């Protein structure tokens, strides 16, 4: 495209002019930005060739083609060239060439070159189309092959479903998960394969995608296998992208194991491992649910349970036995609470809660509470023993429309406290008008500290009479506390409080000293006819290291002969594994102190201790005596038990005292059965020491005629 043959000098000036004009015309239609100077240079060259000696058709066509090659492909370029050259192009020295013919040659060269260029560009773009299509097809084939491989060998279940939720295509993994051949899944509805409970959710998710409410959805759903099993699938749903057919692709992960693990974990999280009952979390959640979902006039009813004296069981028999008791109680509780919609669970320790179904009436709640109280009374086999356990229950049915579960629990707890205060082994119904137990408890705590000094504690004495002749031979000392404001307080309450406050040792010593001092008075007056004093000794006192020495010192101080003192111990107190208490008892017995087993028959079944320990007397619990009354449902069994105890005691050279004798028949029966001693309201109510003094001094007399102030506990 450069100047081949420049013309002679004269023509050169003309050529510059021509190039200048030509360049201006062409630049305007140039597709490519170009410097005018550069363009003029190029065009001057072309003009020179055309005006040159060698000019002819060949040169003319060359120039035409050069214009195309330089990129002046706009057809206006020919027009511009002719316009620039037609009148100006000098005729070459040969003079033979016709200007018009020359320009015709340029136009022809341009046209041919343009056609060729157009054609080659078109060919190249068609080649590009073909190449692109080929590689797109390869990519698609590769992608399809990959997809096929993925689809077939994927560990995830995959299926494509249509607008009607029918499976259009499913992969082997999904078939495996559902335990059906792939062919069997064809045309099945995905919703139909899911379990009834989950159909609505699956349907909703599919629907959301079909109507494009969502672009993606995930959900867990259970599906049935033909063998009746369940598989949990985590489904992920998405629309198929390049498809006008509105299909969805569903991928599925088998989540069954995790699901089971999770439900086990959530069972674990919501259940008490010891009893397998619902735990605190579940109970409270249940209460929240009830509180959240109830109708305005619907009540929520709960029972709050606490075992009586559970601590003693743990202390004396060890925690394993305690756990046995809790498990048994839990089992009985579950049996008693079989009503649908009810929940019985363990709150912790020896506390249980029953939550009634929504809308339960109070009397239903009370019936359940009654059932539970008596079910717990049945002896419980624990650590090789038969333990007798009782429970206190606070019942509340909430009639306040907007009260919170925590209010309900507090109310039940207060009622429970009343049940405890009343001696346990019973239920109490919460009554908002009654004293707030929490407040009561704290007043009592502070009262208890001063009570020892202020003399609010008092001892009462219940005569123990010889059945043969009705002569009082002893007196059981009973501790009473009359609070200045609240009146008489139940021993269960203040003993617990005293334990809590660390005052129990002091209190125990006070009882012993006071009792012994009183008995010493009787002894001074009546000598050998004086009744002995019988004092209850707790497990804790028995475990006090200094017990024997201290007791002997006290006896010495007050001037009471050792044989005038009887210590009453429950079986559980006697049965600790420790050797210390046994030694102490041994030492005391050697000095002549009597040892009696209190509540015999209610706690412990292994009688070996009777041989091992210096026991003198068995006391039969009042509950057995109660059954001796004719017409009482448990008469035959109780009579058998009492007879056996008497036989056992006599066989071992022990005496027997029946407690809680309340009727003449009972007294009579016991006498005929050979029971040695008895105590109870039939003979005398617990009274002041003077009464004992008087009774013993008078001897005999009408058994029912002792007038002793009755002391009520409430």
């Amino acid at each position: 495209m450069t100047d081949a043959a420049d013309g002679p000098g004269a023509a050169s000036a003309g050529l510059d002019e021509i190039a200048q004009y030509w360049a201006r015309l062409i630049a305007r239609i140039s597709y490519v930005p170009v410097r005018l100077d550069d363009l003029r240079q190029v065009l001057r060259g072309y003009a020179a060739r055309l005006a040159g000696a060698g000019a002819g058709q060949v040169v003319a066509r060359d120039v035409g083609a050069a214009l195309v090659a330089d990129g002046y492909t706009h057809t206006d370029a020919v027009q511009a060239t002719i316009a620039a050259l037609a009148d100006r192009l000098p005729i070459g020295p040969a003079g033979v060439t016709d200007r018009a013919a020359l320009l015709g040659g340029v136009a022809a060269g341009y046209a041919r070159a343009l056609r060729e260029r157009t054609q080659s560009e078109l060919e190249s773009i068609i080649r590009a189309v073909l190449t692109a299509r080929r590689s797109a097809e390869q990519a698609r084939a590769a992608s399809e092959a990959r997809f096929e491989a993925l689809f077939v060998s994927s560990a995830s279940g995959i299926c494509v479903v249509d607008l009607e939720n029918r499976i259009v295509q499913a992969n082997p993994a999904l078939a495996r998960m559902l335990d059906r051949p792939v062919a069997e899944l064809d045309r099945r509805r995905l919703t139909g394969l899911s379990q009834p409970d989950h159909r609505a959710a699956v349907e909703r998710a599919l629907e959301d995608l079909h109507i494009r409410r969502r672009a993606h959805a995930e959900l867990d759903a259970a599906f049935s296998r033909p063998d009746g099993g369940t598989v949990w699938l985590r489904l992920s749903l998405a629309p198929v992208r390049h498809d006008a057919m509105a299909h969805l692709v569903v991928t599925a992960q088998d989540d069954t194991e995790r699901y089971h693990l999770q439900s086990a974990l959530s069972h674990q999280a919501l259940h008490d491992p010891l009893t397998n009952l619902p735990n605190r979390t579940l109970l409270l959640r249940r209460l929240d649910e009830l509180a959240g979902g109830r109708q305005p006039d619907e009540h929520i009813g709960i029972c709050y349970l606490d075992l009586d004296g559970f601590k003693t069981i743990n202390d004396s028999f060890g925690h394993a036995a305690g756990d046995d008791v809790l498990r048994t109680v839990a089992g009985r509780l579950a049996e008693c609470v079989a009503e649908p919609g009810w929940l019985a669970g363990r709150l912790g320790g020896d506390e249980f809660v029953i939550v009634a179904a929504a809308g339960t009436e109070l009397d239903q709640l009370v019936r359940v509470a009654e059932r539970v109280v008596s079910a717990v009374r049945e002896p419980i086999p624990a650590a090789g023993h038969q333990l007798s356990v009782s429970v206190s229950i606070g019942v509340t049915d909430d009639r306040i429309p907007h009260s919170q579960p925590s209010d309900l629990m507090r109310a039940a707890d207060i009622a429970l406290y009343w049940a405890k205060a009343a001696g346990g082994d019973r239920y109490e119904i919460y009554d908002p008008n009654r004293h707030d137990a929490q407040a009561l408890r704290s007043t009592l705590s502070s009262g208890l500290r001063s009570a020892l000094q202020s003399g609010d504690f008092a001892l009462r004495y219940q005569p123990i009479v010889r059945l043969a002749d009705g002569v009082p031979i002893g007196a059981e000392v009973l501790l009473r506390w009359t609070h200045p404001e609240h009146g008489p307080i139940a021993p269960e309450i203040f003993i617990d409080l005293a334990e809590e406050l660390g005052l129990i040792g002091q209190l125990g010593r006070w009882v012993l000293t006071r009792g012994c001092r009183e008995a010493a008075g009787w002894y001074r007056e009546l000598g050998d006819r004086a009744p002995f004093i019988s004092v209850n000794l707790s497990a804790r006192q028995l475990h006090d290291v200094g017990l024997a020495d201290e007791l002997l010192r006290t006896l010495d101080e007050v001037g009471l002969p050792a044989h005038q003192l009887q210590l009453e111990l429950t079986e559980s107190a006697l049965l600790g594994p420790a050797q210390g208490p046994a030694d102490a008892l041994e030492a005391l017995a050697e000095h002549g102190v009597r040892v009696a087993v209190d509540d015999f028959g209610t706690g412990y079944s292994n009688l070996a201790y009777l041989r091992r320990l210096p026991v003198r007397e068995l006391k039969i619990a009042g509950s057995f005596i109660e059954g001796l009354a004719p017409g009482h449902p448990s008469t035959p069994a109780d009579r058998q038990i009492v007879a056996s105890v008497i036989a056992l005691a006599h066989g071992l050279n022990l005496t027997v005292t029946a407690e809680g004798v309340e009727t003449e028949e009972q007294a009579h029966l016991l006498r005929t059965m050979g029971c040695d001693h008895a105590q109870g309201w039939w003979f005398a109510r617990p009274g002041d020491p003077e009464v004992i003094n008087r009774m013993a001094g008078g001897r005999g007399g009408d058994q029912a005629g002792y007038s002793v102030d009755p002391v009520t506990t409430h």
Partner: protein
Amino acid sequence: MTEPDWAPDDIDIDRPSASRIYDVWLGGSHNFEVDREIARQTELAWPDSIRYARANRAFLGRAVRFLAAQGIRQFLDIGSGIPTANNVHEVARRIDPDVRVVYVDIDPVAVAHSRAILRDDDRTAVLQADVRRPHDILDQVRRGALLDLDRPVALLLVALMHFIQDSDEPYESVTRLADSLPSGSYLVLTQGASGASPEADERVRELYRRTPTPLTPRNRAEIERFFTGFELVEPGLVNLPDWRPDPTVEVDDRFSGALIYAGVGRKP
């Protein structure tokens, strides 16, 4: 599993494509009747279409020369289209023959053609990729190892972003790309704002809906937002012909009524 972005059926001379329409206006013949038809129709609405195309191309040339003069030796040209006269590598190599250019386009035909043209050039590469998937572009660029992304790169998004709808998050794409370039890199961007009249613009948008890449014009503020994180070099964001015009160059790029913004920004 990546689906091909253009199904083979899309690679069809029955469907007009932006790159080939542009080629029509640049005097090329890498186009088919469907493309020429859209070009003609567009020219009816925008009589200046050819001038826009040329002016855009001329700007590209000026910008590349400017960048090469600033020492830039690496170019990432996204939406590069069909090679024609004065391609980026050609312009830049007039200043330094060692310039490296990676051309990227979504149009498989433009890509196939570019590859055919540049087959023997080992300092250029052609990728088929989508600016809406910047990670894919960066991955391919890194794998190709032609560009060193630790050294300054000029990112060319020339006459591209008006093909990206707002719902495709154009700003996020540009940010992603820009974030992976070191300081001293440049962003070159042009994008159409408005043409002859609102009616004419709507007509053109309608015509481009027949292509796989419909048009989304943006106003000045929206276009300037693409330069977030860049400092615009003089004269800032201006109408195409006003960006550092070259008085020595004869180009018919004086158009009236249309606004196509052009700018060059430097990453500090």
